[in-house]
């Protein structure tokens, strides 16, 4: 398996090599070429599996340099506004996890070199839970969480 991978890497022309060829042609930054949608991460049923699927690790370091702006009480779980701001230098990505959702990972924002550590979006929450923001920087995963109470669940069914 490893020698196959090496051969593919060296040839750069087999199925997975399309991205390799594009990267070597300078069309994709290395960061963006790793941005393929991860089924393992998005379909994971618990936080640790989602983190492992996305980053290969679920080791989180708590950080006070990440701020989550989200309502204390969300009246409509289908539309919960969440903004994450981080002052951690070299932030490569910001991920938003709704701890008690059936599939906790809601989004992963991969930031380009000049992009600020700030994202804002709206997520669905099935029930009251922690919203966890994970920032990847310098090979480590930093996180903070905020409890959001949900009065009407937002995932349907």
């Amino acid at each position, binding site marked *: 398996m490893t020698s196959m991978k090496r051969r593919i890497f060296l040839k750069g022309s087999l199925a997975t090599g399309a991205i390799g060829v594009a990267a070597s042609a300078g069309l994709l930054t290395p960061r*963006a070429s790793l941005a393929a949608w991860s089924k393992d991460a998005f379909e994971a049923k618990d936080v640790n599996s989602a983190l492992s699927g996305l980053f290969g690790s679920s080791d989180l370091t708590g950080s006070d340099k990440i701020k989550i702006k989200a309502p204390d009480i969300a009246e409509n779980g289908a539309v919960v506004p969440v903004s994450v701001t981080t002052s951690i230098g070299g932030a490569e990505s910001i991920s938003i996890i709704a701890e008690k959702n059936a599939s906790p990972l*809601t989004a992963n924002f991969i*930031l380009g070199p000049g992009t*600020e550590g700030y994202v804002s*979006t709206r997520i669905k*929450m099935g029930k009251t839970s922690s919203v966890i923001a994970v920032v990847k920087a310098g090979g480590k995963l930093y996180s903070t969480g905020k409890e959001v109470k949900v009065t009407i669940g937002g995932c349907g069914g």
Partner: protein
Amino acid sequence: MASIKMRAKASDGVTTIKALISHVMETGTRKDKKTGKKIPAHFIQEVVCEHKGNKIMVANWGPAISKNPYLSFKFSGGASGDTVKLSWVDNKGEKDSKEATIK
């Protein structure tokens, strides 16, 4: 397809992008009330923002992003008059994109 509304504004060297995308973002867990069958998942998986050929931001989304997704982020290096492009692809391979001028 005209699904994207976007505003890009530069202030003190930082450009703020705000976008609203029309998309059903179906989770795949809802049931059709008449047939009792699950409505298949249909959601945006990837959103890319480009400026001068660089990918400013790539977002990978799951079905838990709300219907008609709102998105905002900021980057430095953009100037008034520059063009930014936002594109998305969903799990069915449907896509759309929009260009906007930074104000």
